[in-house]
């Protein structure tokens, strides 16, 4: 693999974490503004424990950080990790840019198909 092993393992964690719609939504929310786990639990039709579990997965992937403040646990989004996700999409984009360039070259060199 051309992809560095460490980056690869990290990406597994990140994408595993983002494979769930609720977790993606949590990331979007806490990137915009920090929120406590109990605040998040109120937004979704699920228990505090279930939301807590999602947050743990996101935290392990480095997508959010958690900080205890009094009786609350505040969750914050990690912009850097989200950026890394976008970078992966960019790599896929490069594959398609290469293909489009090659199609363009074919169209330019031949007026009509042989």
């Amino acid at each position, binding site marked *: *693999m*051309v*992809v560095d092993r460490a980056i*690869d393992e990290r*990406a*597994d964690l*990140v*994408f*595993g974490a*983002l*494979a769930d719609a609720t977790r*993606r939504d949590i990331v*979007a929310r806490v990137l915009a503004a920090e929120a406590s786990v109990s605040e998040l639990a109120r937004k979704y039709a699920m228990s505090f424990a279930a939301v807590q579990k999602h947050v743990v997965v996101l935290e392990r992937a480095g997508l959010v950080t958690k900080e205890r403040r009094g009786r609350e646990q505040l969750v914050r989004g990690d912009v850097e990790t*989200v950026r890394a*996700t*976008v970078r*992966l*999409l*960019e*790599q*896929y*984009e*490069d*594959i*398609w*840019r*290469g*293909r*489009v*360039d*090659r*199609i*363009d*070259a*074919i*169209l*330019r*060199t031949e007026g*009509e*198909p042989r």
Partner: protein
Amino acid sequence: MTVVSTTKDPQALTLTVVADLAAPPSRVWQVWADPRQLERWWGPPTWPATFVDHDLTVGGRATYYMTGPDGEKAHGWWRFVTVDEPRLIEFEDGFADETGAPNDDLPRTRARVDLTPTDGDRTRMTITSTFASAEQMEQLVAMGMVEGITGAVGQIDAILAEG
């Protein structure tokens, strides 16, 4: 600029690439419909593609393999979902074993290719790739990198020189 715009949606897991091509849709259709032309652009120069089957009909399949610099082969398949010449092709794109049989343990994407005529006998080609899950997207990116995403420039030069 051949590629006009790209849109990445990490939430919806889609990538959209819009290109402006200097030929009408009937001609652009051929680069998808003719396996010999497909072979000239699907794989990067370091991993050229060979199409073994290419049945561009609804429900039809294409099977192909890509050959790496050390002779190693990566097999893939397409299944055509929509074929509307010369406007629209939708297909699933997945990996296969060495016999060409689909390998369902590996990710598959869905691609939609829209060809729209524009002024001056040109075509706007919009390619929308949809990933089944973020995990699959990561796997595909990793595999795409193995196949090599550079060297396109060199290949263009070669085609130009060939005339």
